């Protein structure tokens, strides 16, 4: 089980690195964010009591009374308690509340879209790779166009086509604002309806990468000796394709999930913005535009933790499906 221990250890290190990065970025940047922040806060009618100022100084590194190390320790303490401070753009809400409201939207949207595109990509890649040398090979270069299209531009085009012109889908938002938030059928179907277009954008843009990777691995796998054994054994084609070729060819795609997930998450941040989707991507942008540094940092951390978590899950899954990871030599 050392594989699992190693993986968990790695993600702890990565988490620590992200936290540390988050701590040092505002301290290394030019300008005085605290003053900008305070000015913003006063505009919003917030009271600038010394305690609030102190908290921001701690977060952004303008506090000179404490040593860097002391600041670092208190910062870690705050983060571990889930305390990211007060949001300026959504004053007087706390950052954790703001994130709490928008995170589920993103997780469901990006999670579903990624799963769909991953499954679709592997499936299509399996078929295209299995029939290598047929006309399907000419489909492969076409998928690169999809991968090369910027997410947000595809979102714009889809919106122009399917919303503005054809009126199939709503242009903006995550649900019908006339509805009450809640777990009822009406609300959920509205959310699905609103989420289709952003999800479609993510799926279209990312499916090509999965397809191509899977197809190339299928082609490599097909010339392996165990494929010859499988054919000599008189197994049915479908069984050979699934249990022998695809089973092995999918492994690198799963191992490379981390790389691809980063791209998808990056893309979805911008996509959310195009559709004014009520997720963390849109929130992040609002935070940047309003100099809401606390919210910015909070969202960055939450996105990072979510990505790390997803990768950890995938890595653990990989450990289960590839027996070779279980015995280290």
């Amino acid at each position, binding site marked *: 089980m050392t594989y699992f221990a190693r993986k968990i250890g790695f993600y702890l290190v990565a988490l620590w690195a992200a936290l540390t990065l988050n701590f040092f970025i505002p301290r290394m940047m030019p300008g005085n964010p605290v003053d900008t922040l305070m000015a913003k806060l006063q505009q919003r009618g917030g009271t600038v009591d010394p305690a609030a100022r102190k908290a921001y100084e701690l977060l952004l590194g303008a506090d000179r009374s404490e040593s860097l190390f002391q600041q670092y320790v208190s910062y870690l303490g705050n983060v571990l308690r889930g305390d990211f401070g007060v949001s300026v753009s959504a004053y007087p809400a706390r950052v954790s509340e703001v994130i709490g409201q928008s995170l589920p939207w993103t997780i469901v949207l990006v999670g579903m879209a990624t799963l769909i595109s991953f499954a679709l990509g592997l499936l299509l890649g399996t078929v295209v790779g299995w029939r290598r040398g047929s006309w399907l090979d000419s489909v492969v270069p076409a998928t690169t166009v999809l991968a090369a299209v910027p997410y947000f531009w595809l979102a714009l085009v889809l919106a122009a086509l399917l919303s503005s012109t054809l009126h199939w889908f709503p242009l903006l938002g995550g649900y019908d604002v006339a509805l009450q938030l809640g777990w009822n059928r009406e609300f959920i179907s509205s959310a699905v309806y609103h989420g289709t277009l952003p999800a479609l954008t993510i799926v279209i843009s990312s499916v090509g990468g999965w397809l191509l990777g899977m197809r190339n691995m299928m082609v490599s796998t097909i010339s392996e*000796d165990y494929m010859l054994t499988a054919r000599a054994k008189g197994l*049915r084609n479908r069984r050979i394709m699934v249990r022998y070729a695809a089973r092995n060819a999918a492994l690198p795609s799963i191992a490379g999930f981390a790389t691809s997930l980063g791209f998808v998450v990056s893309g979805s941040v911008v996509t959310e913005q195009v559709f004014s989707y009520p997720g963390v991507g849109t929130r992040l942008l609002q935070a940047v535009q309003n100099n809401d540094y606390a919210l910015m940092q909070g969202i960055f951390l939450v996105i990072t933790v979510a990505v790390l978590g997803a990768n950890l899950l995938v890595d653990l899954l990989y450990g289960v499906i590839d*027996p070779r990871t279980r015995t280290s030599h």
Partner: protein
Amino acid sequence: MTNDIAPAAARPAAGNTPPEAVLTVRDLNVVYRTDPPVHAVKDVSLTLNRGEILGLAGESGCGKSTLAYAVNRLHEWPAEVTSGSVTFHDRDGGDLDLLALRDEELRRFRWAKLSMVFQGAMSALNPVISVRAQLEDVLTTHRPGMSRQERRERCAEVLRLVGVEPRRMHSFPHELSGGMRQRVMIAMALLLDPQVMIMDEPTTALDVLVQRGILREILRLRDRLGFAVVFITHDLPLLLELSDRIAVMLRGEIVEYDTAETIHRRPRHPYTRTLLDSFPSLTGDRGAFLRTGAAARSDAPGEEDAR
């Protein structure tokens, strides 16, 4: 040579009963449709008798593997059988024209009548599914009527036959040693009680001692179960000791085809002699390969092609 353990019928050279063919290859031609085309197998005719071990000797690229794969139609594009016939004579009577079988018939034929053992058992076994799953695969496909319990028992039985503990079936290939993997491969080949087994360099990658153990196993199983073996290797001395008859291949053609005894004592084709001379005898005299004196000048290249 004499062999008092093998049943007489299984050893054509030993018994009085006329040998009965199990596989006949007639004028087989295989061409690689590359540019320029390569004629990999040229007008090859062979007869494999029931229960015999036929050695196929030759260097890399001589077409011996191509020939073996074409028999079972395992060759893939750009290899193509251009002419000739391969006929399988079933134990229960009835001949099968292997080159004319439709895809589904061919699939049913494979492994049930003719199974194979490949060189790199490391790569010939699927690395991510267990040995048991790979053994049972064969049974679920070819014997759909078998119950789970029966399948499990049959797998354990063949593993015991090749001297592998049945509990090893839960292992994955990378957890087994090279010799063990090759034994598993042979066990797998035995599952459906085939009449012919084609072995493509089954012991080449193994250490001498492990190789010896496996060869002994193959002979023992052949004597007991009576299948015929096509044994492919570049190691002629090994074939001389192991097989009943030997075909020597050079550039796609069979240049000599005779009993092991004759090839050992009276090789006719110069290439056969070259091959024989290439293997110094362990205990015999230093022959053409003397490293001192005049013969040592024989180091000039006059060699083979790149592999």
